[in-house]
């Protein structure tokens, strides 16, 4: 497996846990406007970015490993531009929204625990 994208969490927005309860995790590169930072997890990515992941590839958040089930059309472009993507924990095989990447379902608490500043987030394919 090759690493497609590697980044380190720098800050977890105050309302990010609420978003997790709503079933989604929002990532933004450090430097996003404050309105967005509130609801997001901010991170500092490596310069290098690989090709878009496909269903069956893996996403890891700290020690948590999740299978990717669907990738929205424009999701990877946003990852490259803004370090922004929405991870939807709905295990859908078709991404309903173009900007999201769907992964297997996990409990919000479990994901919240994995989200600590310094932890790595990685897409592997």
């Amino acid at each position, binding site marked *: 497996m090759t690493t497609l994208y590697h980044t380190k969490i720098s800050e977890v927005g105050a309302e990010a846990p*609420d*978003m997790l*309860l*709503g*079933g*989604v995790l*929002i990532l*933004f590169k450090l*430097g*996003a*406007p*404050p*309105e*967005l930072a*509130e*609801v*997001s997890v901010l991170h500092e990515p490596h310069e290098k970015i690989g090709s878009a992941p496909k269903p069956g590839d893996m996403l890891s958040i700290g020690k948590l490993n999740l299978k990717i089930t669907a990738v*929205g059309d*424009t*999701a990877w472009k*946003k990852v490259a*531009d*803004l370090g*922004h993507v*929405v991870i*939807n924990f709905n295990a859908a095989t078709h991404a*309903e*929204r*173009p*900007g*999201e990447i769907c992964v297997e379902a996990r409990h919000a608490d479990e994901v919240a625990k994995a989200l600590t500043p310094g932890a790595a987030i990685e897409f592997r394919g």
Partner: protein
Amino acid sequence: MAKKYKAVRVEQGRGGWGGPLVILPTPERDKIVAITGGGIPAEAKRLAELTGATVIDGFKAPPVESEICAVVIDCGGTARCGVYPRKRIPTINLTPVGQSGPLAQFITEDIYVSGVKAQNMKLADGSEPVTVGFDSKEKPMAKQAARPAPAADGSGSGALVDIITSIGRVMGKVVNILFNSGRRSVDQVIRNVIPFMAFVTMMIGIINYTGIGNGLAHLMEPLAGNIVGLLILSAICGIPFLSPILGPGAVIAQVIGAAIIGPAIGTGAIAPAMALPALFAYNTQVGCDFVPVGLALGEAKPETIQIGVPAVLISRQIMGPVSVLIAYAASYLL
């Protein structure tokens, strides 16, 4: 020195949702912010050009929230398209998505429009209210008053637009309140009133048809048919170890009222003059089951609750019969 700003109507594009919005910058809120990454999109530039506002890249130089006139985003449906409407900042999404994501409740047609292309933006003709971006915590009217009358181009349509805006917003708010009140009342009737009616009418049916009702009425007559009986009834209902048991949901009071005393008054077994004192007598125990919870709702300290519970129960034992006496006296005024 005030710059001339123009109102621009932004409609939804193909496959889009929401809007139309009428964007009008003010001297305080004069920034169109592109939150799209990869530079400022043509649509944001076009909007700035038409309105006379300044366009900036939200990722390069994020402005303070109070300066934002509108945001232009290309959100796929979760984060940005919810965050800005939640702050009541007019939001123009280039991607055609509607209400979705965990913030969907904030994405409303009066503050959000999607699927927008450059050709969906036109100078407004003043016939529609301006979409006013204000923080949801602020009072919309206060904002309206604080904002200087926008300079209109050539005509006095700016002031008119403002008046129409405020009338429109007030009307919208009132209609919304009325509608919600209607929903709440129907909800109450269906969830609480009708189920209780079903239960009470079943009891009434059985009691009346079988003649138990007459028996019960005769039985209750010495208690409910004269003032001495009512005082005894009240004293019984108010006994401190009995009153909390009789209280819950006012079920016992409702059954006594609806299935026994009410019908007995209807048939003449109990005199109508007893109605008022009876209402107080068979309800002496009201809320005695709920004292700790009720006090906690008023944020009482544990010591207060500890003393408050016996205080209310003892008071009830005394005041129950006293209430009946007062009601009995008052019934002479009827």
